[in-house]
């Protein structure tokens, strides 16, 4: 064995024996550094006879190449081992509970309002708002409910001790229909508006709370018919409940519409077979509706011989209960965190 072969062998042995990156650097310097063993062999070239130089140079270079390669390989191996060791050392218990993050929730009434608003908006209805503290005129008289009308008794109205600036009796609105009149007075027909908000009735039991929410829509144009009312409601209900709906309209009576219809849908829970939710009738009452009464148009300053249209209204809580399976109305107003966390929705998870 030549001395070069020997040099190569000992160099490779040294590299192979390495087990840390720090040592590796030292070994690299002793072999390939400025005064390293292999570098020194190359330096000898100058002192060799010209005819030997080429061969010897090549031989030394081959040693240098193999040792360099060996060093590279070793370095990679050591680096990988070091990374693995670091990862092992940094291991955490991911099953430990995460940091406390307060996930807020929107009240079921709020997100149902948003859903309803979105659907009606697509059907061409613009949102309108109005006061909750009202006068007799906007809540009753303008809606074709005169003073001695039996319908007034059904409303269980809350009255206020304070009169308004004109000395008129004030009340808490019993329905969102007051917004119809305000809107008609301020805007011109044709119009399609919806109003959603709090309403109040002096009644409290299993199925009534003194405050609840209503949605109401009114559409006025030249040619709107009862058939258009049916179409609008069918679409609204199917979009809201996200399924095919069997709808039934029953003749009814509301002073502000003529004809008037109660709207039932086939029970969502028993498919019309009869169950506890639908009181074994197979139907669920969800909306009131009808063609806007001439007297209401007149109260709003709209010419009833020129314009006609329909209106409808529903209880938001009722819609929420049916869609989301909430079975006790009173829970909406008890502010219980357990109820609200369960049935509430994060604001990032709205349907709209």
């Amino acid at each position, binding site marked *: 064995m030549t001395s070069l072969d020997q040099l190569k062998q000992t160099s490779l042995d040294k590299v192979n024996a390495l087990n840390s990156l720090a040592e590796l650097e030292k070994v690299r310097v002793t072999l390939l550094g400025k005064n390293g063993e292999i570098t020194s062999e190359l330096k000898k070239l100058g002192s060799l006879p010209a005819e030997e130089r080429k061969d010897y140079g090549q031989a030394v270079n081959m040693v240098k190449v193999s040792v360099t390669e060996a060093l590279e390989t070793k370095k990679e191996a050591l680096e990988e081992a070091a990374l693995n060791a670091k990862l092992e050392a940094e291991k955490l218990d991911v099953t*430990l509970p995460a*940091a406390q993050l307060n996930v807020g*929730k929107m009240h079921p009434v709020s997100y149902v309002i948003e859903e309803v608003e979105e659907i009606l908006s697509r059907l061409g209805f613009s949102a309108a708002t109005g006061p909750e503290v009202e006068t007799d005129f906007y809540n009753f008289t303008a809606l074709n409910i005169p003073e*001695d009308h039996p319908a007034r008794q059904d409303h269980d109205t809350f009255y206020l001790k304070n009169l308004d600036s004109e000395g008129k009796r004030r009340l808490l609105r019993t329905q969102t229909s007051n917004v119809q009149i305000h809107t008609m007075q301020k805007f011109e027909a044709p119009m399609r508006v919806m109003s959603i908000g709090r309403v109040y009735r002096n009644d409290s039991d299993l199925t009534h709370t003194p*405050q609840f929410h209503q949605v109401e829509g009114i*559409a006025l144009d030249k040619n709107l018919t009862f058939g*258009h009312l049916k179409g609008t409601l069918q679409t609204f209900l199917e979009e809201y409940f996200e399924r095919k709906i069997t709808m039934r309209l*029953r003749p009814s009576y509301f002073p502000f519409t003529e004809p008037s219809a109660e709207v039932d849908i086939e029970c969502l829970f028993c498919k019309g077979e009869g169950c506890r939710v639908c009181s074994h009738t197979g139907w669920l009452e969800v909306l009131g509706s009808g063609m806007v009464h001439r007297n209401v148009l007149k109260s709003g300053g709209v010419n009833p011989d020129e314009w006609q249209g329909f209106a409808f209204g529903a209880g938001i809580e009722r819609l929420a209960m049916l869609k989301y399976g909430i079975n006790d109305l009173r829970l909406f107003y008890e502010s219980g*965190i357990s109820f609200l966390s369960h049935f509430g929705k994060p604001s990032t998870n709205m349907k709209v």
Partner: protein
Amino acid sequence: MKFSLSWLKEHLNTDLSAEQLAEKMVTLGIEVEGLESEGEQFNHVVVGHIETRVKHEDSDKLGVCKVHVGEKEPRQIVCGAPNARDNLTVAVALDGAVLPGDFVIKPTKIRGVKSNGMICSVRELGFGEEHDGIWELETDYEVGTPLATALGLDDVVFDVSLTPNRGDALCVYGIARDLAAAGAGTLIAPKQLPVKTGQKTVDVKLEHEGCTFFTGQMIEGVENGESPAWLKKRLEQAGLRPINTLADVTNYMLMTYGQPMHAYDADKLKGNITVAPAKGGETLEGLDGNTHELAAGDIAIMDDSGVIGLAGIVGGESTSVDENTKRVFLEVAQFNRSNIAVTGQRLQCNTDARYRFERGIDRAMTVPAALLASELMVELCGGTVSGIDTFGTEKAEQTVIEFNPEKVKTFGGLDIDASEVKALLEKLGYAVTGANVMQVTVPTFAQGMENEADLVEEVLRIKGFDAVPTQLPPLPKVRVKGADKGRNADRVARRTLASLGYIECINYSFINRQKAEMFKGDESLLELSNPLDAEEMSTMRPSLIPSLLDAAVKNIARGEKEIRLGEVGKTYTEKSEVLKAAALMAGKAPKHWQGDVQTSLYDIKAHAMAMLESLGLDPEKMQIYTNEQTGFHPGRSGQLALGKNVFTTFGEVHPALMKQYGLKGNAFMFEVNLTLADTMNMKKGNLFMSPYQASERDFAFLVSEDVNAGDIINTLKGVDKDLVRSVNLFDVYNGEGVKEGFKSVALSMTLQAEDRTLKEDEINKVSEKAVAAVQKRFNAEVR
């Protein structure tokens, strides 16, 4: 209103079943709330006949009976009743019968002997309490007859509810008439009785404009007593209590024809009758057991003794018919609906008569019903009628509506021929003349029919609303804009509260007065005249804060530890309704292994600012006021405002308020005025983007403790508006090494230009200016 199928069928010839009739009623707008088969508990229970009974081999008490139930062969039934014997007619429950207590009958074996059915006692069938042995039936029933039929319990009772416009259908005859018009049978018209004028034995003076027509009949020689079974049953099915025959007949006629009437014991009347306005203050012992005080203008029925009845509402005790009555004076009259409504409502007196007068009666039915009533009284109680006396005049004119039949299509959405429209209206009792424009005469029984829309409804009702094709209207060409004041702020605020980690609750708008009082500021509160709860729900809330505190208290009582509640809603004072959003952080976050989370004033401040930013405002550009605000800790609260427009108050809840509500620890809250935020339009500054390097300079100042950090920040920002991009306060320190009454404030200022990289000397110049400004304004030392 309740009535039975057999009653209805006296006025309607029909082959339809009770269920089919009920379905038809629903489409006509008569809501059917209940449909009750009388003999329902007797399904699969039949009349049987015990031929023979022999003793059970394995029992002393049991017997084995051969029972005929109308089948080819008698059934074998094991029975333990002591009275079971040969040749006895009994009630037998067959397989499928469900007896009270959900006891299902099926073939079985009793001590090894097959038993196919059950011979029942009265109690076992839920028909009474008797349980001494099996029910021994009359022998004349045919074997196999359903027990319900044998007992006459195969009627069906409808329970219907009618809307206030359906005065026409508040009686059995009216329902039959509507069903007949809709093709569910043919109407059987009431018997026409001849009108014979009476002798005015009792004279009646009409002096109240609310009574224009009154009829009286004198019936002499009656024997009053208990009504026959059929009449009592009719009334009981209708939910009425039978009293005596004369009174029962008046109720029966009211239920049948919708015409209220009243029977006076003529021997108890003092002199003649006057119908006149009450003076006010008179009292009446009513038949309803209450003493009613009359008000001026009420329609009073009077004789020489004073008030004997409240017209159309309730009769008086003093002249009532009883078992000794021999002479009857029968009143059948018409009273004005609004008089009845006002009086009835004031007296809270709910009677069947009032209910019908308020909703309108058929004024053509007054005389016929009066004659039918007196005829029935004579039939049941004997005696003779002297004839009918009428006082005042019947209103003759009928409403005529000009009607374009095209409206059924252009308004109702149903495309049908004018001829069919005419036919349908005529079926309903309307008289129709003309073709393109019809003259439609409204029948006397129809209530509130005034215009074309009413007639369209009648046509659609009879055709069924289902017949109208469903059609989605085209989208409107114009949309209403600007009617939704506050709506956007409302929605944004709800979403923002949730995104900031608050649970949104909705509380009642009315709260406890004392709690409201605290937050009313300079305004007057709105108070309810008729609150549901005079203590806790009497006053409209001027702030959302009391509601949130109450909600927190409630939740803590239920075991919640950490409270983060928010609400969006209106607040009310005498002058205005203001939409607000509020949030409350109370209680304690649960302990965490990484260390407990502490909330502070600066968390709620961050949330209040985030809320304003969501609403499109720039809280960084607002002033911060630190005046004391109701409910807030005076040293740990502030307001964000632009001039006199205060958008929010935030801070720690005042310790005194915490104590008042019984809350422990520290709590933080904010309230934002959304109505104000909605009207405010803050302009955004120009976009600043620069590719050139930004530089930072840090400073530490020693200032008096009462210097506001915000003022130092603003001073630094103001040094060079073009170059100072931001100022970040990163440390406040007043511990060791800082002299008493002072604090050390450390800030970092970022400088950047839009058009060049800043040179060292430019930066130094701004920095020196900044230091000088802070030194000068706050008397600060540079550390």
